[in-house]
């Protein structure tokens, strides 16, 4: 006489075994730690780790948004250099149209610089 088993019964049994297999070491470790490695918290132990130094101030600091002006002016000079250098190298073989186009480009950048100058960004405060 054979007994009919549901094929899913074995899956459930294996699932339970797998979960117990995974959780049992964790539980044992927890019990071991509770008995042989008791928690001993303290103000220094729980303090923020900063290479042994005491942490100072707040982590939520803000940077001044006005620094974007420095970024823009840096871009003016930086981009200008990138374009002016090849322009200077190839200057002898350029047509008059190219020269005018380059002057317009430089004028646009100088205009930006002039705007920043007027705004007082270049004065060190």
């Amino acid at each position, binding site marked *: 006489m054979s007994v009919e088993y549901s094929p899913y019964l074995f899956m459930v049994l294996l699932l339970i075994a797998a979960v117990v297999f995974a959780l049992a070491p964790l539980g044992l470790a927890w019990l071991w730690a509770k008995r*042989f*490695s*008791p928690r*001993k*918290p*303290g*103000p*220094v*132990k729980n*303090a923020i*780790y900063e*290479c*042994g*130094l*005491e942490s100072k101030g707040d982590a939520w600091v803000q940077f001044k948004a006005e620094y974007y002006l420095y970024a823009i002016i840096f871009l003016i000079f930086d981009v200008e250099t990138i374009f002016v250098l090849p322009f200077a190298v190839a200057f002898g073989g350029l047509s008059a149209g190219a020269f005018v186009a380059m002057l317009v480009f430089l004028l646009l950048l100088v205009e930006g610089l002039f705007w920043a100058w007027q705004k007082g960004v270049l004065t060190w405060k």
Partner: protein
Amino acid sequence: MDERLRSELSKQGIFTTTLEDLYNWGRKNSLWPLGFGLACCAIEMIAASMARYDLARFGAEVFRPSPRQADLMIVAGTVTKKMAPQVVRLYNQMPEPKYVIAMGACAISGGPFKQGYNVLKGIDRYIPVDVHIPGCPPRPEALIHALMTLQQKIDEQALTGARRPRHLVAEAPSEFPVPEYGEHDLEPPNNPAVWQPPTLVRSE
């Protein structure tokens, strides 16, 4: 378990052990030092962890960058008075059970700077040191020897009774007082619970 019975069983190929021995065996072979060098001794410590001396043979090559994961502090080098509070704070932040190896003449006594004004005359004035290594600097072999000595010490620790480690004593403090950098010297100049200056006894 009777020692004679144990050896008799091991002759028959049956090895017996205790939970305590198993625990200590695991602990002593997985000492994770704090990646923490103070002076030239740290170079020797680094050399000991590299291929030629290979600290990994003792399971102690995992230098942790955070005290939260370390259980061995190798005080490798000169502890200046400016640095001593940080050393004690790092030691406090390590989880129990934790051990300290004082490496080199400076860490154990102040070494060549003992007469100076700004060097701590031994880190054992503030934290309990398990193994002292003399030398200036000690060779990597000396550090390995210290590690083996510490392993022996861990192996002999019991889980219960009088030989149990400090963290299992309920009334033992979990933290050691961090000295303050005072006007002339560290305050207090030493932790009286850990170290007391030797008293001079004159014979009349």
